[in-house]
């Protein structure tokens, strides 16, 4: 139902329509600010996040340390700002890989019936495994590094993308213009590239924002549970995990990374919700299931 109504609409949306949506503007502004801050931390905030100053242990926020310090006397502000880099990297790369691989699997199983059953059963199998547990298992067997984390967080996200794309491809196959192209003897790769893929663009952009938001949360959760990067690379999750023991006496260790994490995920989700309203208004169902 979603797919056909979406296809009936004119495909192009001018940039103007998108920018008229307040949710998109708010989400985009916050997200871009956080990205800029993370990219330019070394320039704008010249404190080393791993600088241990024993006499400055567990100091509350002050002029000198605006977010306070942790149990090793490290500056929380520096750790939080650098921590954003890992989250951003995860969000962006996981969204990219999950969308790419998911689209590939979705197109193959939607277009080539022979492979459909096998691929979709594997996707079903992946989908029923709670995402965090699957990621934990993958990290446990291959050790935590940036590369294995990206892999571990991407895998649980793939099935949703694959199902979305497969659904679109299945309904497109029945469209007259695709049948016409097949009848004219157009090579398969051209049909897929010219007629099928462009139609997945709108829903996939929306899906990509949700995957990115989910990847940022999953990375933080893995770090929090002790399955993430070691603490010499600060991440929002591992700063919070380290702050747990001192929570009663030094709540700021958890509060600031928590705030940044929440802002980041919220801004990406707002962007996604806004884009969905503009690009894909009928599909309030498909985004978040």
């Amino acid at each position: 139902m979603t797919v056909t109504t979406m296809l009936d609409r004119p495909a192009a949306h001018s940039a103007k329509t998108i920018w008229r949506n307040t949710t998109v503007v708010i989400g985009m502004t916050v997200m871009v600010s956080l990205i800029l801050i993370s990219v330019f931390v070394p320039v704008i905030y010249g404190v080393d996040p791993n600088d241990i100053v024993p006499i400055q242990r567990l100091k509350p926020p002050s002029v000198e340390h605006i977010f306070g310090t942790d149990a090793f006397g490290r500056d929380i502000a520096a750790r939080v700002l650098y921590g954003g880099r890992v989250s951003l990297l995860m969000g962006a790369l996981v969204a990219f890989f999950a969308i790419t691989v998911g689209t590939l699997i979705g197109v193959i199983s939607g277009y080539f019936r022979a492979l459909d059953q096998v691929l979709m059963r594997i996707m079903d199998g992946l989908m029923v495994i709670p995402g965090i547990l699957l990621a934990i298992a993958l990290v446990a067997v291959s050790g935590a590094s940036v590369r294995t984390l990206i892999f571990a967080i991407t895998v649980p996200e793939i099935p949703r993308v694959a199902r979305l794309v497969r659904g679109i491809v299945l309904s497109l196959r029945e469209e007259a213009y695709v049948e016409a192209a097949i009848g004219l003897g157009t090579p398969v790769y051209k049909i897929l590239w010219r007629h099928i893929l462009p139609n997945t663009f709108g829903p996939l952009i929306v899906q990509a924002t949700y995957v990115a938001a989910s990847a940022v949360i999953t990375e933080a959760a893995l770090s929090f549970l002790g399955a993430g990067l070691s603490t010499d690379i600060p991440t929002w999750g591992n700063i919070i995990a380290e702050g747990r023991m001192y929570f009663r006496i030094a709540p700021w260790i958890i509060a600031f990374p928590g705030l940044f994490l929440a802002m980041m995920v919220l801004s990406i989700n707002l962007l996604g919700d806004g884009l969905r309203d503009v690009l894909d208004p009928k599909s309030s169902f498909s985004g978040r299931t």
Partner: protein
Amino acid sequence: MLRFLIKRLIATLPVVVGVAIVVFLILRLAPGDPAAVLAGGTATPETVAEIRQKLGLDAPLLTQFFTWAGLVLHGNLGTSIITHQPVWNLILQRAEPTLSLGATTFVVSIVFAVPLGVLAAWYHQTWVDRVVMIISVLGFSIPAFVVGYLLVYLFAIDLKWLPVQGFANISRGIGPFISYITLPTITLSLFYGALIARITRASILEVLGEDYIRTARAKGLRESTVMTRHALRVAAGPIISIVGIGLAMLISGALITESVFNLPGLGRLTVDAVMSRDYPVIQGLILVLSLVYILINVLVDIAYAVVDPRIRY
């Protein structure tokens, strides 16, 4: 009904096999030598060889799969590398807090989220709708371990209304049980309830656009009757199926929430297993929780068939 049930159960078999294959392959296809990773950086070659042999990693892949699947079918999930206890026992010992948290969250989420979703759809594009949507996007976006610590700080440390962390078995009386489970339940319900409220709103909005709703209104029925008798009845289907699909997120969320509140449940078991690289335990947890999820979704489908008058079995 029985035929529908049997057909539905048979349809889950390929998924169960899919899960088994995925769980089995995770360890075997990981880059590098899993035995070495599991043994840790400081292990001697003898320890690595011992682990490899213990997990049967030295046999051909297919043999490994069928040996493992045979054991699992007999209810043998293997033994923990660390405590040498059967994984199945470990899971049973830790199940109660997780089940309690899951059940309270499930009830609280549905009791609050469904009416909120209905209200938002009813007052579509008014401030009621906006407020519900803002709460739900917040519930979705703020991770459980951030909300959890915020609640602990407010209600346990600052106001001292509720205990900070821990768990009381229901056998210790309903009072202590509730006082310990309240904050974890709120934490997890914000997340799970946000999902349900969004879907309730969306599916009711969709149903409200149908012709038969216009007919019902044209007949002069009261708006409340249209909403409860006509719209909600049909919208219940999608809501129920999201409640089921969302359980995978509920399970993930429960593991993290438990960790925040120090509940001695499956979440703690998972964290301990990760810390000590106890792979058989992680594998057993994935398998058991995935099967629970599949089973609940069969029940959800049955509920769907019962509420939706259009489905005949």
